[in-house]
């Protein structure tokens, strides 16, 4: 594995973790805004569920 490949892999991993940190700043200010976000979130979670289900660990 090249250094560049490792950089990409680790950065991809860290990017997702870092999202949780920014979450604190991104929370909606009002309940109305939050309700709109919930609709968007439900759709996103549907897509992520499909990605999680599609992943197949290798048979070893």
């Amino acid at each position, binding site marked *: *594995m090249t*250094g560049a*490949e*490792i950089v990409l*892999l*680790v950065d*991809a*991993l*860290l990017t*997702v*973790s*870092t*999202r*949780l*940190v920014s*979450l*604190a700043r*991104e*929370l*909606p200010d009002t*309940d109305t805004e*939050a*309700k709109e*976000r*919930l609709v968007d*979130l*439900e759709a*996103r*979670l549907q897509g*992520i*569920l499909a*990605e*999680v*289900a599609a*992943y197949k*660990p*290798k*048979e*070893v």
Partner: protein
Amino acid sequence: MRPYVFSKWLDRLLGTGLLLILLAYLLSSCAGPRGYVASGEALAAIGQQFVQTGHLYDTLLEKKLITPEQYRPWAAFAKEFQWSYPKAVEMWRLAVRSEDAAAAGKLEEVVLALKNQLLTFALEAAERLRPAGGKP
């Protein structure tokens, strides 16, 4: 140079342990729609991290940076995660629709457990990337 860079990444990754505290705070401090946004975003991030970590483990195995014996715990965890994650998402949906505080509390426990386990595997994978004999 390489060991330093790897160590820097590992330190950053270890720093994500603080995420658990932040996550617990986010999940428990916000009631109502804002709280559900926080827990939903956390679930989304965990799902994406699972897929990323899976690809990382697959690459480590393909490049023979880990043995099949070292890969096996990940494969077992992946199957458990794929069973429990959809249930956690469903629990979130039900909590949002019913605005049930008890369900939200249970969801908090589930999200933290999934995040904890996933982080353990992510750290293990990062450790495998560290060159043999490299100093922290």
